[in-house]
């Protein structure tokens, strides 16, 4: 990762959609002005559509049991998909603790 890239960490259960890669690097310049988690996921929708649709539904809402972190902060505690991202940020997609028995 460089200072002009956002590093997206992909959980093991979704790596079949990234060719097995645990990390997808995205150039911040590809996200337009004022890049956000939402524009990052929009970009992923174009590049890795099956990864993105597992994270968001067809209305581009984050799935209920999926958490997205910018650094160590859950975007649900920030501005959801409006949360800004910048070059050098690490964005992690992590399944919530749920599932039942």
């Amino acid at each position, binding site marked *: 990762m460089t200072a002009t890239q956002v590093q997206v960490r992909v959980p093991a*259960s*979704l790596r079949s959609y990234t060719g097995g890669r645990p990390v997808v690097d995205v150039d911040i310049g590809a996200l337009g002005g004022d890049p956000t988690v939402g524009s990052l996921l929009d970009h992923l929708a174009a590049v890795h*559509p*099956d990864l993105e*649709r*597992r*994270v968001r*539904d*067809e*209305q581009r*809402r984050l*799935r209920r*049991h*999926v958490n997205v972190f910018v650094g160590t902060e859950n975007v649900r505690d920030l501005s959801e998909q409006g949360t800004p991202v910048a070059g050098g940020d690490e964005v992690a997609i992590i*399944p*919530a603790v*749920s*599932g*039942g028995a």
Partner: protein
Amino acid sequence: MIGTRKGLFLARSEDRATWAVEGPAFPMNAVYAVAVDTRRESPRLLVGADSEHWGPSVFHSDDLGASWDETEGGALRFPVETGAALTRAWQLQPAGADQPDVVYAGVEPAALFRSDDGGATFSLVEGLWDHPHRPRWQPGGGGLCLHTVVPHPTDADRIVVAISAAGTYRTEDGGKSWQASNTGIQALHEPDPFPEFGQCVHKIARNPARPDEMFLQNHGGVYRSRDGGETWETIEDGLPATFGFPMVAHPHTPGTAYAFPLVADAHRMPPEDRLRVYRTTDGGDSWHGLDAGLPREPAYSTVLRDAMCADDEPPAGVYFGTRGGDVFGSADEGETWGSVARYLPDILSLRAARVP
């Protein structure tokens, strides 16, 4: 195909007496919808699998489950302008033999989708989505879902669907327009016992050899139609209870159908605490219990709406799976039963077919 709350299992048999079970595929995914499409050169297996985390998806296999394909971008998606998002596929239903590439999907939130490429991609049937009743449909206990699609075996324009808890709707123009089709079916949760819509229909089955005759398991009440769903009458003589979920028509013999009654809405367990299938052979005029070979010890498990099915063989095989994870089968139309699989997760869906 055995869809469970935690994945798909496949059971194979040469003689329908001894079964080899493999799986799970899609572990931890709830498999509410399975289908074996035998109209194709190589049979296609279809699966609706929902991940608690990663949402619903539809997969298909043309090598009997050795490998699975997932359509890029997803096979089933609501158009953005609907504002809706898929919760799950409840039903994947191949159409009649004269439309070998058409597969219907019934989904939650309640909507019908149609595929013209064997289930790889689907599009919303807008005629039903735009129905003026839709804003007033109320969800049943399982959500507002279109769980049953009954295509006509020879007339592609005629389809019947069931929605919980909106009732039965039918089209006679291939899905462009839909009519509520609940005349005679009682709604137990409405002040008006016979509203135009709002019934909680659990399952509808049709015998392909007599397509105007249909059997219906309601949320309380078992019904028959002999006019393609236009009107319904009760057929409960011989049934120990009128509550239940599945209803299966015999694949060849008109007038024969199978049900799995439960005591009541407020007591969803088998009557007399015994696993017992009920069969009619006279179009619903009478029903008789079938339990030879089924466990004799007390049983409290239920059979969900898509967890009973028949194969297409002579004599027909009949199968059911319980929420306790047991699957039973009969190779002689229900006369005698044996175990297909045990100790699986809750059985949600079941389909059987002869494949090469």
